[in-house]
């Protein structure tokens, strides 16, 4: 199948067409290998003992009875690995297993390796932990106002500070107060974004292997093998060169596997102790405890505009409920404000964000890290402003379009920008003009827009090395080998490097082999997060492939006595461009090159621009080589008796720069819209309070109770690809994995307003929440279809 998107103007052959994924058939025939599919001779099974208390001191752990159990081969506790780690180098606040304090129900305290899982589970019951319970902080406002009269969750950075605060960010651009005062209209709103979790269908799994003298190997379902590699070395106190991390295929991640977890350290340590391979597979319940999901945000916005609908000033105050550990929280706190300044231009902007610890599973990055929550609030604010100034919400957004090749108020550099085309695409496809404010009471449409990064200019740990590298070899058989350290988590990055190799070197796609997922023989790629992979890995792959292509062109040109740049490589052939009947099989071309240059290999790398960011503290965070843009329209029907919102359809238009493989881009757009829909309507990360059981206990750690959408729940999704051809992206590509999630939630909220005139400012829009809103509106007499913009 080879179909170019209708609007593609490129002369590329394979890039831009629908292609199979290189591991697609392996996945559909059951041959694809994930971590838990591996077993090794003599392999032991590990289990982790977890805290039953949300906050407690660990006074003593007695493992003697467990150790005496037949079939138990090794036990580790926090004392065996007393080194803190953390994905952000400035906030290492976790131990692989708790040393002296547990901070949430589910925190790991000890791990056992035994002949089988049953024996390991029996051993866990024999471990005695002496806890001294401490008062827990479950509410972020309580955590924020703590005065030290009970122990903080972590030690304060400085004496007298509140140890429950992870990070505070205050940034201000322009004359926020002055412009708000001078605005014709100001909308104030208070919003709550309930926390949600990733729920990949594959639970986390890791296997450790120690060769008995010096080499540690860890297989893991991680999406960041490079950071895992570094942290294993640091915590276990062995050289990085002694550690090898392998990443089998990953069964979904969405940010939930983007830092090291207790199981990886435990399998490694237990393998080193026992001399045998050790596997730990999380139960589904443990996946919920591991969490690192979307932070609950409490948000206040004040947004001003002129009477003709130009944004003047934005003021935000945000409290982030971080859970027990810092995780990516430092970055989340910045992202909560930094990523809001496009696609609309705003003369002044201030945000005040504070992340606090609470005694709950740690929050971290989930698809659209830190910016999905403020985007929800802000796009609803815009809907409210549009109504106040009497403009169609599409028109309001267009009037505030920031443009391309420009800077945001917080100095992020925007390059290509297809947001206007996105708006146009969803407006037309959804039949907006016939529907908005025109459908009967109970039915409505809503629109929202957004932007997202394509990776970050500055890596997580400061260094000047490339963010992504690729190695490529061709040989006399015609085969191309690509060595890629990128993390295939379902998004298709292994296929992307294969497409690029085939495009540049002119071989059929199935002559390309991608060697992947092994830190021993692939160059470093920093991992599958922040939508960086296609952009950075793609550029690295082009760099490597072009070097090889030039050698082949030169060798063939010499043999034909023509200029090298007149030699085309395509479809398994080398051809002379002025007269393509002059040709030879690509294999012969490779042979000529090998004869000319010797064994053929190249490396390619990509590094981000380091001079493009705001000159202020934090100005590097949010700086990306390019930004994607998205617009959604959602159509809903609301049952006002039951409070049930039925999302009929979501139209998603996304500016991905160039669709390297349109079918994969659509898959990301649909998966994103689906995930946002689930967060909007169904998903809720709920904890018990003291009145309803054990305070701090996760209420629903299962895929039955934590309701992710099934096929029957999911609305119809229509994806509309917009290509803006970015100057720095590989063939012009940007990201597609996270941006398209953002507008789902506000588009649905705005559609509910269009349908029945109530504002849903708190997530989720579940029947009880919607019904409460309906009840309140009824008693106010405001349960009616809102009037059309501009109508008197």
């Amino acid at each position: 199948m080879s179909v170019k998107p209708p609007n593609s103007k490129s002369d590329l052959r394979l890039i831009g067409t629908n292609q199979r994924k290189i591991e697609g058939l392996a996945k559909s025939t059951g041959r694809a290998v994930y971590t838990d599919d591996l077993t090794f001779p003599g392999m032991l099974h590990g289990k982790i003992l977890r805290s039953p208390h949300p906050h407690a001191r660990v006074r003593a752990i007695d493992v003697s009875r467990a150790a005496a159990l037949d079939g138990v081969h090794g036990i580790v506790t926090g004392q065996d690995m007393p080194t803190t780690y953390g994905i952000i180098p400035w906030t290492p606040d976790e131990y692989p297993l708790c040393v002296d304090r547990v901070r949430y129900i589910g925190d790991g305290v000890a791990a056992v390796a035994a002949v089988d899982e049953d024996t390991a589970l029996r051993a866990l019951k024999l471990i005695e932990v002496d806890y001294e319970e401490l008062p827990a902080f479950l509410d972020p406002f309580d955590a924020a106002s703590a005065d030290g009269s009970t122990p903080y969750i972590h030690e304060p950075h400085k004496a007298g500070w509140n140890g429950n605060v992870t990070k505070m960010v205050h940034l201000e651009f322009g004359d926020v107060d002055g412009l708000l005062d001078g605005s014709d209209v100001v909308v104030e709103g208070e919003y709550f974004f309930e926390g949600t979790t990733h729920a990949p269908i594959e639970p986390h799994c890791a296997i450790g292997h120690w060769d008995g003298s010096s080499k540690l190997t860890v297989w893991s379902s991680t999406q960041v093998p490079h950071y895992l590699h570094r942290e294993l070395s640091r915590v276990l106190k062995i050289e990085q060169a002694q550690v090898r991390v392998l990443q089998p295929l990953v069964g979904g991640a969405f940010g939930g596997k983007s830092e090291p977890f207790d199981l990886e350290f435990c399998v490694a340590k237990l393998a080193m102790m026992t001399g045998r391979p050790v596997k730990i597979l999380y139960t589904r319940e443990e996946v919920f405890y591991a969490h690192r999901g979307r932070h609950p945000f409490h948000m206040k916005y004040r947004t001003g505009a002129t009477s003709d609908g130009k944004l003047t000033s934005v003021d935000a105050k945000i409290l982030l409920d971080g859970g027990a550990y810092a995780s990516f929280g430092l970055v989340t706190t910045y992202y909560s404000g930094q990523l809001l300044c496009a696609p609309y231009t705003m003369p002044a902007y201030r945000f005040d964000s504070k992340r606090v610890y609470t005694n709950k599973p740690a929050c971290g990055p989930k698809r659209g890290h830190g910016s999905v929550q403020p985007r929800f609030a802000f796009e609803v604010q815009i809907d409210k402003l549009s109504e106040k100034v009497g403009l169609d919400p599409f028109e309001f957004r267009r009037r505030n379009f920031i443009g391309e090749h420009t800077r945001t108020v917080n100095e992020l550099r925007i390059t290509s920008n297809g947001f206007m085309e996105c708006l146009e695409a969803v407006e037309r496809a959804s039949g907006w003009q016939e529907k908005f404010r025109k459908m009967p009471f109970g039915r409505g449409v809503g629109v929202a827009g957004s932007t997202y990064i394509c990776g970050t200019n500055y890596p997580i740990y400061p260094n000047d090395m490339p963010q992504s590298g690729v190695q490529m070899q061709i040989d006399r058989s015609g085969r191309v080998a690509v060595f890629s350290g990128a993390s295939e988590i379902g998004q298709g990055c292994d296929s992307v490097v294969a497409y690029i190799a085939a495009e540049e070197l002119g071989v059929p796609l199935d002559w390309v082999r991608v060697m992947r997922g092994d830190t021993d023989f692939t160059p470093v790629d920093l991992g599958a997060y922040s939508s960086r992979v296609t952009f950075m890995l793609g550029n690295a792959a082009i760099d490597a492939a072009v070097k090889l292509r030039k050698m082949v062109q030169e060798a063939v040109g010499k043999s034909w006595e023509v200029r090298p740049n007149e030699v085309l490589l395509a479809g398994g052939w080398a051809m002379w461009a002025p007269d393509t009947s002059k040709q030879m099989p690509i294999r012969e071309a490779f042979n000529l090159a090998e004869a000319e240059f010797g064994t053929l290999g190249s490396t390619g790398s990509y590094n981000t621009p380091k001079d493009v960011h705001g000159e202020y503290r934090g100005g590097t965070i949010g700086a990306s080589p390019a930004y994607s843009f998205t617009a959604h329209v959602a159509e809903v029907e609301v049952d006002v008796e039951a409070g049930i919102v039925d999302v009929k359809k979501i139209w998603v238009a996304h500016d991905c720069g160039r669709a390297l493989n349109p079918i994969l881009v659509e898959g990301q757009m649909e998966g994103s819209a689906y995930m946002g829909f689930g967060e909007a309507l169904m998903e809720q990360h709920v904890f018990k309070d003291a009145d309803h059981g054990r305070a701090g206990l996760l209420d629903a750690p299962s895929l039955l109770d934590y309701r992710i959408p099934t096929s029957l729940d999911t609305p119809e999704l229509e994806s509309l690809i917009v290509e803006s051809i970015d100057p720095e992206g590989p063939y012009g590509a940007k990201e597609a994995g996270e941006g398209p999630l953002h507008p789902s939630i506000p588009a649905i909220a705005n559609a509910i307003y269009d349908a029945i005139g109530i504002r849903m400012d708190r997530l989720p829009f579940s029947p009880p929440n919607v019904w409460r809103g309906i009840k309140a509106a009824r008693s106010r007499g405001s349960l009616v279809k809102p009037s059309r913009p501009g109508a008197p």
Partner: protein
Amino acid sequence: MPATTDIVRLIVNGDRHEVGVPTHFTLLETLRYVIGLTGSKQGCDKGDCGACTVIVDGEPTLSCLMPVWEAEGRQVTTVEGLATAAGPHALQDCFDLNGAAQCGFCTPGILCSAAVLLTRNPSPSREEIQEALSGNLCRCTGYSKIYDAVEAAGRRLLDAAEAP
């Protein structure tokens, strides 16, 4: 004390197996960890996700909920058994062609549910596909491409049946 084990006789993808398993093992554990057919996936181990779906006597079945003894003497088909020597099942090829497997972890279970559906009804409506797959969670795709793939496979099976 290790669990008691016993011998169980299974017919999986047409092959007879006689294996010793702990008596509390499920069909899923036996397939994956005893027989070595790791295509069927475990996403929850408690009947919530559908990743472990296999076909038992023609019915889609959650193998994580089936004690291995209950499978004795019955025809078990896993994702590995859908392909033949002639090539992959139409569904397997169409999943690949239509980008219906992203991470692929739900795919084996979905294929088993869909294979049973198409056996009964090669041209199902979208609603019928949604119904048939409602016990299989997919966290990656939003399901759209999965529906496309099932429809395409159904058409292909019909065409093959009608071919002279």
